């Protein structure tokens, strides 16, 4: 049981790190700001979710799980808003945004 928990938790944390790496590659790989924002928003949600889930399984305690859930809720509320705000400012200030992609 202990071992199975440790393995599952570690695998989840590693998966989360893989997601972080993918989004990091995306940030460097894409050429335009909006694409990059899209890539970086990936780690805010899925990456942090996987890492928190892995940590909750590793620690296996009610209070730790609750605290991690609070942190995750905070990240899930604030992360997309931050991404949205940055993107919005880019769309509002960039005169040539229509040349890169279609924006409403």
């Amino acid at each position, binding site marked *: 049981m202990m071992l199975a928990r440790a393995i599952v938790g570690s695998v989840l944390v590693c998966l989360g790190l893989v997601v972080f790496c993918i989004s990091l590659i995306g940030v460097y790989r894409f050429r335009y700001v909006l694409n990059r924002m899209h890539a970086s928003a990936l780690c805010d949600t899925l990456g942090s979710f996987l890492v928190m889930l892995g940590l909750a399984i590793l620690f296996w305690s009610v209070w730790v799980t609750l605290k991690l859930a609070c942190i995750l809720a905070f990240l899930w*509320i*604030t992360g997309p*808003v931050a991404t*949205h*705000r940055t993107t*919005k*400012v880019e769309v*509002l*200030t960039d005169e040539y945004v229509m040349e890169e992609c279609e924006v409403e």
Partner: protein
Amino acid sequence: MTKNIKERWRQFAAWVNGADSDTPVVTPEEKRAARPHPLRFLHGMLSEKNEMRVYHIFSVVMCLVFTGTLLLTVLYLPTFGGAGNPTENEVMERYVEKGIEEVGATNLISNIILVYRGFDTFGESCVLFLAATCVMILLRKDEKNTTAYDLAERAEDAEIESEENTTVLRSVVRMLMPVILLFGVYVLLNGHLSPGGGFSGGAILGAGLILFENAFGEKVRRFMSEHVYHFIKVAALYFYGFTMIYVFFTGANGLHSIIGTGIPGMIFSAGVIMPINVAVGLEVACTMYAFYAFFSKGEL
């Protein structure tokens, strides 16, 4: 006549630089290019491509070695809160063993930074004050140094911060703001009981204020005017200074202090630590907010 002189001068310069001689002219740029780069140890031993590959592998290996060393060091650190943790020397021993008895805070760190080394922390608060003052001197905008460009920029900012462009941010901030401010106040007031204290609590409060300013610019600027800012900052610093003088005077002369240590663990305990934490927290929050305001708008 002048043309003649110029012409001659040019000839002379060319002659000095080696024109008309048998050896070819070498400019400094060419010389520099011919010399191997000081960091390229393998210059000439491998082909260009292989050389770059060796450097890439070397840099990755170096990063891995450093990361591994740091992680290994973490393994050898004493466990958090372990009974056998090393007490480094007699000063540390005194802090750890007599701290609660003498000062009364269960958070030993705040015993050390606010009472045993309170003068040092007072200096840090003064540094914050000075930094905010310098930023104010350098970046402040008033009618004398506001150009048309600044006005245009400000109008653009107002457009970005207008109501229809910040709907999402406003609704989320309305939800999060009480939580953030409450957490900041909690960290401030519990500085002598749990991890936290003036600097971290003030940073949380300041960050919350900045977030609030981003969403509801006008509302924050209405209560955080320059007047209020100066009053809070100066009052907090004066309060800290006079409290520290009192503590040092009574402590150094063995006088009876009317501010007792109380029961360790209670919220009203540890004498002057909690009020000082509040003063430091207000100072830090004001400084952070002022930095943000001066860098973004040039005024509070």
